[in-house]
């Protein structure tokens, strides 16, 4: 029997469910080849839900402790809704006919995946966690192959699907051990069992870690990333590169840290090792890339490594700094992908050469891209600087100086390839004259990202404080 408490706990999920039905109904009702109205409904709905999320307050756990609406969940849900809003806004003006004709399909899939993320952020139960993970992932496989007439897109979707299913299987297998040893699917009890040092629980959690590493695309589980990013449509990729990763990190915090207290330190060696590999591999593999989307794909892998540095700190401030990093990453990375999309529409090419002389053709677009690149590179006065600084800080306070130094030095490698893109825009002469025209919705999305990068770069304090507040109860 739904009580007011129940409604309060599930307000966002219920709202999103209603939006899904609305989009579905609208799609059925519409006739003809242009169904973009559906897109507007979905985008507007997500915006409304985003505002609603600021009315949501933490409530006691529902469904017998399976579902919690705590500070961390609300923080993460705002992030998902914000990223989805920007992603949907950018895809509204997409020129491919598929986006107009199959708008209903596209938006239903995005929203279902979003629903999976929202539930995932609140899941405190192994079964619910797994179901939410699959609800998030399966629509992503379909979306990766959305442009089904392109061979590469189909190939990328298949690759993504196979790797993703294997990782889900590994995760499910590991979680079955956990259940067998802990005799409960409740994460709180699992944590207690892990603390007792039961070998099967440790083994199970280790297997599950590999599954999570696939989802967040840490090295060596990253192979699907560049191909998928290159072939899928760019506004979707912009979203894919941030939102599911953020969801993966929230799940990591829930499973490995929440309630673990001092014992969370057991995961430090694995997390630090994975962070090292991911940072080194991502940055080095990004170096030779000529396609901007592939470059951003590899640089994104490196960013996951930097977030793992914060994870490796295994402390409340480490978790908080990863949350901050995720927000900065949403703005910086989505912004960079969207500028690539804008240029690709005008030039028909996603190579870095297409950006040549952009500063002289569209100074503002080039400036926005420069800001995104500097933010990704971790330069002062834009969001990414504080993000890197805070993760390093968290790692340094627990004594991981070597990891900090390694990360800081590899930042220089990252700046090299980001500056190569900046060189294309600012130093090389343009091949064609005339500004790059972009539809107003895409321009608005880029503007939002740029504003986010600058505001967080100049005044990061409120967000840092909020992140620290929501991370504190985990330990």
């Amino acid at each position, binding site marked *: 029997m739904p009580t007011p408490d129940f409604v309060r706990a599930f307000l966002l999920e219920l709202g999103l469910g209603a939006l899904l039905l609305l989009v579905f109904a609208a799609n059925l009702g519409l006739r003809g080849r242009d169904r973009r109205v559906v897109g507007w409904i979905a985008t507007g709905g997500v915006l409304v839900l985003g505002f609603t999320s600021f009315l949501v307050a933490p409530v006691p756990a529902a469904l017998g402790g399976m579902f919690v609406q705590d500070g961390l969940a609300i923080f993460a849900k705002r992030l998902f809704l914000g990223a989805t809003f920007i992603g949907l806004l950018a895809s509204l003006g997409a020129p491919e006919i598929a986006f107009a004709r199959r708008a209903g399909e596209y938006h239903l899939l995005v929203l279902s995946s979003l629903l999976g993320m929202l539930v995932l952020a609140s899941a405190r139960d192994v079964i619910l966690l797994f179901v939410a993970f699959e609800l998030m992932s399966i629509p992503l496989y379909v979306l990766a192959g959305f442009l089904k007439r392109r061979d590469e897109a189909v190939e990328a979707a298949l690759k993504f699907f196979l790797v993703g299913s294997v990782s889900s299987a590994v995760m499910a297998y590991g979680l079955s051990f956990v259940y067998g040893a802990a005799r409960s699917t409740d994460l709180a009890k699992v944590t207690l069992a892990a603390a007792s040092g039961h070998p099967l629980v440790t083994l199970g959690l280790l297997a599950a870690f590999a599954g999570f590493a696939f989802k967040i695309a840490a090295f060596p589980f990253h192979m699907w990333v560049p191909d998928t990013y290159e072939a899928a449509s760019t506004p979707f990729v912009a979203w894919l590169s941030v939102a599911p990763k953020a969801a993966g990190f929230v799940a990591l915090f829930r499973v490995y840290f929440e309630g673990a207290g001092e014992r969370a330190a057991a995961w430090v060696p694995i997390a630090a090792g994975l962070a090292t590999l991911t940072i080194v591999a991502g940055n080095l593999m990004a170096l030779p890339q000529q396609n901007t989307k592939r470059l951003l794909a590899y640089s994104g892998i490196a960013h996951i490594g930097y977030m793992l540095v914060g994870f490796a700190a295994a402390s409340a401030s480490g978790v908080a700094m990863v949350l901050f990093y995720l927000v900065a990453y949403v703005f910086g990375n989505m912004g960079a992908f969207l500028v690539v999309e804008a240029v690709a529409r005008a030039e028909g090419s996603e190579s870095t050469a297409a950006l040549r002389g952009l500063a002289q053709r569209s100074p503002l677009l080039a400036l926005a891209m420069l800001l995104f690149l500097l933010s990704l590179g971790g*330069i*002062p*006065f834009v969001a990414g600087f504080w993000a890197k*600084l805070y993760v*390093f*800080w968290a790692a*340094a*306070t627990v004594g991981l*100086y070597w990891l*900090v*130094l390694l990360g*800081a*030095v590899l*930042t*220089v490698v990252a*700046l*090299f390839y980001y*500056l*190569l893109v*900046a*060189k294309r825009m*600012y*130093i090389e002469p343009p091949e064609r004259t005339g500004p790059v025209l972009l539809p107003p919705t895409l321009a608005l999305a880029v503007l939002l990202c740029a504003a986010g990068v600058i505001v967080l770069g100049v005044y990061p*304090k409120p967000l840092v404080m909020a992140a620290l507040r929501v991370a504190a109860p985990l330990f």
Partner: protein
Amino acid sequence: MTLPVLSLITWAPFVGALLIMFTARRRPLAVRLIAAVTTGISMAGSLWIYAAYDREAAGFQFYEKLPLVPPLGISYELGADGISLLLVLLTSIIIFAGVFASWTVAVRSQEFYALLLTLVTGVFGVFVSLDLFVLFLFYELAVLPMYLLIGIWGSSGEIRPRGIFAWAYRETGVGTKEYAAMKLTLYLLFGSAFILVGIFALYVNAGAASFSFLDLEAASFSPAVQRWVFLAFYLGFGILAGIWPLHTWSPDGHSSAPTAVSMLHAGVLMKLGAYGIVRIAMGLLPQGTSDWVWLVGTIATINIVYGALAAMAQTDLKYVIAYSSVSHMGIVLLGAATLTEAGLNGSVFQMFAHGIMTGLFFALVGLVYEKAHSREIGRMGGFGQAMPGIATAFTVGGLSSLGLPATAGFVAELLTFMGAWRSAHVWWLFPAVAGTFLTAVYVLRVAKQIFWGPPSPHFHHLEDARGPEWVALVLLVAVLVLFGMVPGIAIAPVDTATVALLSRIVGP
């Protein structure tokens, strides 16, 4: 409420940059006037603080403080002592001269001046910040615009690579402006990673929750921390100061940069590195300093000799000047490493003298290149007849460079050598003096070849400097001679700071 004069000096160029970007679209003259006026304000301010500084009281004066992030102890805290006074003056003179020296930049001049002025704000900020975190932000602001300044307005070397590595040079684009810009930026950012880690280590170990220099000075650090953090700072700031073998960004960068940027970079930015070592590494880590001076001094002597030898071998005029900077920065660090009053005074004075001198050289090379469209020494000759003004200024600069009495260079080198003589490592004196001798060889050879030799058949219709360009030359030559004749006006305030610094390291 007193006038926040340090903020005024620091932010005036930045305001100029904003004005240029937003008001002076496509009006080249307005751009240059705004640049000249705002840097003029900075220069007036720095002259005023130089005169108003109370030498009896010493310490940090013109103090300003504004908390930025109180829980972390980050605040906007400015103050100047004898060392910063002189370097702020140097910066303001160089940038004021630089604005005039690059009067003829035609391509995208609006962006050029805006970036240049932004960069200068960063430089001023580093010299006057007392909060290490804010200092780091200013440091990054001083480094980053360089990439675009060199990449867009720089010039690629015209002399084709030769020798056994020629193919590798061609493959990697050595000598092109893009290569130089990227190399410089990456080297300096690599260094800044070490600086940041060093600042954090101090912050965490001091336990005072403050980035303020004054608070960190009062804290005591364990010997192990001092040893490692000093090394991190030495490496980080040392890259910018051009320590061997991490100096290679400097010749490439300075040769490819446009005139005003070379002036500013060789003249002032390399001093940021030396200033960081003296102010932060030596000022905060007395024990670490004693542990590592042998390394600092030895590498400094290598710098002096190696830089001079490399300069002798160059055929490109800009590379000669760039390598001479590497050599002269060795004198700066050698003076600091002697841990004597004379040596430290010499070190700071050399920062100033070399800044002015190298600024003058790069301004002159820029002018010569603009008139003759060549930097290849072998092709030039007899320019003295066509451009007597430039020839005279070059000769004065050259004489100062090799340390002729009555020029600023002489005072600096003499003090440094006196310091080396009294230091624990007397042998440092010999490579240092040998370096000066080598400097005389290459400077005189270049001056004779270009200006005083027989006229070259390759060049016609050469002209002397014109209009605004004279402002730069006269100003720099005058300063060079003035500080050589009356070094006391610079030594007196510097001495108040260096004595205090030394008493922390070696005891009173």
